[in-house]
């Protein structure tokens, strides 16, 4: 188990290295951040001074070297635009994004699996077909459009929910969370639903397909023939066997929800780290971009590890440390 985790970590360090080098070269190729950060009224001497102040006058390899040596000392650099350590900027915004992502995944799982199961068990009923039709809409409607429609309907026309921002927060274990207040929940609901929609549709389709397949298996027929109730067959024989792909997808999707909640965060003015990334890309704020991607890589590694651990719990045949394949 420990060796397995260590191997994963070693792999992720290689990924982080390659990624940071790519971002350095990429931002360098796009242009000089000072060209966009500096006030247009500044003259040539001031542009040169600002470029020097940010260390951008150095050759690229030296800038990268400075970054790497700083990173090993635990310093990923300061934001060009804010002069605040990039990691601090990201961590300040991270609780909001994690909360949003978690809420979205809870909605997706709590609705997606039961609905998918229903559609799988009763594929030819009106309700089963309606669920599938709904999931196609969830797949194909663009997030930003659905977000704007939600705001239009629930905030502007009905006036039920606040359109933007994060509500009142309370501190839990040192982290600000908003789902424990009414105000917070009211603000959380629409963006979480918006973010969940795609994952929800994915889970519905995945669960339905798995269910349909499992129902045709011999062990299910045998269990039925043995006289077990349908409810027990579904719970013990079907659900448990279709969980492995569902857990994998849920885990991976959770990572992508955290990393790419950008559109939802922008539409709902949710003060998360996705919005920070977009703003940073717009002004070529390289330290923030690199630190952000680095943190995302680590989150993905962690989630994958947890997914693997969940496998062993769900399926005793799966062993870690790579022997199982």
């Amino acid at each position, binding site marked *: 188990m420990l060796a397995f985790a260590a191997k994963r970590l070693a792999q992720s360090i290689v990924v982080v290295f390659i990624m940071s080098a790519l971002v350095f070269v990429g931002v360098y190729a796009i242009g000089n951040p000072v060209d966009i950060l500096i006030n*247009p009224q*500044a*003259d040539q001497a001031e542009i040169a001074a600002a470029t020097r102040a940010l260390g951008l006058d150095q050759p690229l390899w030296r800038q990268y070297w400075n970054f790497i040596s700083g990173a090993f000392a635990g310093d990923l650099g300061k934001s060009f635009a804010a002069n605040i350590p990039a990691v601090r900027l990201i961590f300040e915004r991270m609780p909001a994004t994690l909360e949003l992502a978690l809420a979205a995944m809870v909605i997706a799982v709590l609705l997606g699996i039961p609905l998918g199961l229903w559609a799988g068990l009763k594929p030819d009923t009106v309700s089963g077909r309606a669920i599938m039709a709904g999931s196609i809409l969830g797949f194909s409607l663009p997030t930003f459009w659905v977000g704007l429609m939600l*705001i239009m309907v629930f*905030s502007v026309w009905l*006036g039920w929910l606040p359109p933007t*921002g994060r509500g009142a927060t309370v501190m839990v274990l040192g982290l600000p969370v908003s789902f424990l207040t009414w105000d917070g929940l009211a603000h959380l609901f629409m963006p979480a639903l918006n973010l969940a929609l795609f994952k929800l549709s994915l889970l519905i389709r995945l669960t339905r397909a798995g269910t349909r397949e499992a129902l045709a298996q011999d062990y299910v027929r045998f269990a039925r023939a043995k006289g077990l109730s349908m409810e027990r067959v579904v719970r013990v024989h079907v659900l448990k066997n279709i969980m492995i792909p569902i857990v994998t997808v849920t885990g991976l999707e959770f990572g992508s929800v955290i990393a790419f909640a950008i559109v939802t965060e922008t539409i709902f003015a949710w003060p998360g780290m996705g919005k920070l990334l977009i*703003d940073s890309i717009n002004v070529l704020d390289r330290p923030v971009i690199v630190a952000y991607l680095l943190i995302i890589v680590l989150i993905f590694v962690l989630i994958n590890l947890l997914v693997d651990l969940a496998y062993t719990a769900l399926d005793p045949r799966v062993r870690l440390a790579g022997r199982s394949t």
Partner: protein
Amino acid sequence: MNRLLALPLLAFSLAVPAADLSIALGGDVTSMDPHFHNLTPNNNIGAHVFETLVAKDAGGRFKPALAESWRAVDDTTWEFKLRKGVRFHDGSIFTAADVVYSLDRVPTVPNSPSPFTTYTKQVTDKIVVDPWTLRLKSAAPYPQMPIDIGTVLIVSSKAAAGATTDDFNTGKATVGTGPYKFVRWQKGDRIELARNDAYWGPQAPWDRVTFRIITSDPTRVASLLAGEVRAIENVPTTDLARLSRDKDLAVYRTVSVRLMYLHLDTARDKTPFVTDKAGKPLDRNPLKDLRVRRAMSKAINRPALVERVMEGAAVATGQLMPEGFFGFTPALKPEPYDPEGARKLLAEAGYPDGFGLTLHAPNNRYVNDEQIAQAIAQLLARIGIQTRVDAMPASVYFSRGTKLEFSFMLVGWGADTMEASSPLKALLATFSKDKGMGTANRGRYSNPKLDAVLDQALATVNDPKREKLLQQATEIGVGDLGIIPLYHQHNLWAARRGIVYEARADERTFAHEFKPR
């Protein structure tokens, strides 16, 4: 919190108490340090907490603020009489020492991506005559000193002593003389301010002000419609008609000092993005020919751009400043739309069939920038100049433009100083690193006659004389079509009914200038 818990979810109250104001801003703030990053959203928030010696009214005219009056003692010395009885938020008294401290702090702020030295570097000496009289000297005549110094926000020499940018972000050093006190900054989300009851000027109308950062245009509008905020800035032009019709809302607008213009490569003999109609590079650069530039200017239907693409939120122009601003030249009218005349001029210049051209434009910087570029390309195509549009994010666009990779570009210029010297210096003066001129002259237009008149203007302290010289320089530069002026944008705000805003030419959104009716 208890109040909120008591409310059922669906009946969640969106109304705000009458004495509070929430405003949605379109651009994010990067720092509370007023000397760290010369960026409009930062300066906008800073001007609530801190003040300048000289301020601007809504129309862009200069008015006394922390300085009651100012005068040129001689060609290289300005004297500022400071306002007496002004207190900082911590109770300490404002004196000339605070001004000197602030001016000295500007060049020392570490890691500044856009320093305020632009406005302080010409000051060679600061003489405190008495606590309320300050003399600033410069090496050369410096008529714009009050304007430049009027851009620097004054911090407290006590509260900000040795303060870092972080100290301003947390509020420790965010102690000014302004109408509002700093309460809280939640990055990327909101800034909260509370009224300064001891303010020396008229009391601000709102007890508490919350600035929300909502960068997505449709969301900002939806927040106003839903009543979550009571005012917004940067109203998208697509929503203008709808908001104007809404009886619960009011739209406020005025013409901006931001000029949208086309810059052309008038310097190089061969320019990268001019081709013949088959796409082969041309041996000579037609943009160097004034007749070609004139033809292009005539081909652009400015009233149509303003009405169709900008939904009326702009004013067509044939010069640098909008009417009523320093350096406006009454003789220069917007070029009338004349495709026939344009074709004739092209033929005269030896291009009866036109040529091929690429117009580069940003797609996330100015109001409707990409659409404007598309419309211009179509208009040019009508006189035979096959124009391709290449639009890109501002982060790519400005870097490439500054490296002179383009031949023809759509750009905007905000004359922060409210006078024609700003665009003249940056866009039309000959590019020179030593003189600090032509910084944004990406077409490398150069005319020694203009440079001479401009130099003279920049050294003339007498205002009427200076304005004459600036008008003369404008006539030379625009006469040569060193740039092709298009229009001045409108600055737009919208608010719930009952809240009135005097729209400002300088794009600032000041909470204390929103008034309940």
